[in-house]
């Protein structure tokens, strides 16, 4: 590992020069990013810019073509399988689609990591699981099957599972999608509480600017494979760059094209040129 690139104590994740090409498209172009320890960091950007892909690089599910992804001082792409699994035990991950295990009920889904990695007595496992389910408001749903849950409830169960180990880092992939206002507010509070009381570092990939403003300490805006803006929510809001203006203003025109690259529109509709 390059000593110069080693993260300082207050940086949990340091990404340097990450370059990834997928299907001929450069997803990341020498991306640099620092995620501070014990803070809530939001990663935002237009759809398809690789926000979820970035989380996959952090967890070692994907490897870039070049660059370093240092998590707690370890360069993830170079880790052996055992070392990677040891690191993942300290990371909680909330999937976009919850990814609950359909063979198990809600209780067993949350208990799954504890059963796999500890030999805790059943009473203790029960207490931990019920505590986490109470935190997401679903203690009463412990006996339900995943198929009986709504999308928002499944997401909250997945959140309870992600925090069951009190990990050092939680990665949230679109945590607010499908939540009603009450659940959204409770999840925001939970993210903040986990961060403040246990010092858990949180990384959120989300689009909901109002929610992000309430919970994030730092925002990264990525587009075209690079960080185009960063700072605390207020700094980002006042930034005034074309990127932030377009993204947060929801404008179709700007540096990020709304239309996927395509040929001539009139020609596609079969009109002679100039008649569309």
């Amino acid at each position, binding site marked *: 590992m390059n000593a110069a690139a080693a993260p300082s104590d207050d940086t949990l994740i340091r990404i340097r020069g990450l370059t990834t090409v997928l299907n001929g498209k450069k997803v990341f172009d020498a991306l640099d990013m620092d995620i501070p320890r014990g803070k809530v960091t939001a990663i935002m950007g237009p759809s398809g810019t690789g926000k979820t892909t970035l989380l996959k690089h952090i967890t070692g599910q994907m490897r870039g073509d070049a660059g370093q992804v240092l998590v707690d001082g370890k360069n993830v792409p170079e880790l052996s399988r055992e070392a990677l699994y040891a690191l993942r035990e300290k990371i909680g991950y909330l999937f976009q689609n919850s990814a609950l295990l359909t063979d198990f009920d809600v209780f067993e889904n949350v208990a*799954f990591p504890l059963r796999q990695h500890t030999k805790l007595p059943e009473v203790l496992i029960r207490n931990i699981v019920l505590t986490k389910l109470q935190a997401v408001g679903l203690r009463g749903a412990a006996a339900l099957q995943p198929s009986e849950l709504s999308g928002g409830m499944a997401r909250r169960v997945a959140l309870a599972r992600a925090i069951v180990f009190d990990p050092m880092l939680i990665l949230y992939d679109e945590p607010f999608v499908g939540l009603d206002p009450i659940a959204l507010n409770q999840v925001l509070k939970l993210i903040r509480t986990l961060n403040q009381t246990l010092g858990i570092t949180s990384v959120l990939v989300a689009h909901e600017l109002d929610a992000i403003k309430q919970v994030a300490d730092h925002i990264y805006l990525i587009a075209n494979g690079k960080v185009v803006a960063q700072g605390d929510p207020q700094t980002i809001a006042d930034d005034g760059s074309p990127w932030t203006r377009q993204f947060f203003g929801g404008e179709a025109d700007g540096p990020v094209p709304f239309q996927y690259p395509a040929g001539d529109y009139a020609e596609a509709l079969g009109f002679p040129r100039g008649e569309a």
Partner: protein
Amino acid sequence: MNARIGRDNIVTQSLGQIGNCGLFLLQILAAIPRSLRHARETVRQLWFVGAMSLTIIMVCGLFVGMVLSLQLYHVLSIFGGTAATGTVVAISIYRELGPVVTALLFAGRAGTAITAEIGLMRATDQIAAMELMAVDPLAYVVAPRFLAGLIAMPLLCCVFCALGIFGGHLVGVSWLGIDNGTFWSNMTATVDVWQDIINGVIWKSLAFGAVVALIAVYQGYTAPPTSEGVAYATTRTVVASSIAILALDFVLTAFLM
């Protein structure tokens, strides 16, 4: 020219699939020691692929024995050899029909279920979730199902054979009037434990169980994460397993006879 290129592609793809399947087998074998700590999962899978397949295996075994006895009685009666009905029923079932039909039924009942289950687990990110919870899916999902297939097949084959003999007895003795003592004594005098039971039932069903379970878990694990991908993978499990069972049966028979 184009047809030849197409044929070459199919051959290359098939060889590539067989090679990948072989490498996957090595990964499973390496994961088996790690899967021993998930013994409960292996037992659960054994129940699912073994016990839950019992009904179809028993019913089919019974009818195969019955129809075999009926056909043989009429053929052997031409030569006045109906007394050999029990012997021929037993040898046919032990050496060929038992292991082969059980394996084909096993591929259709349990193999497809394994493929669909693993394929859907991948499509719904359950496999990825396990990896992110530092749980090795090869040790937790794949190896227990492979082991369950390996253990269940010989047991199911024994049940199939027992019900097949019973069906043969039912038709031959109870219906067509072959002497009960002749039926059993000719059978026990001719059937060789090593040649017919060990080589025929045990080794063949172990080999078929390994092949079917391997194809099922491989197709499920590598299925594209779409509904169409899982559907194709399930079909491929049945087709590839059936061909592999019949081809392997010929090879094993040639070597074990």
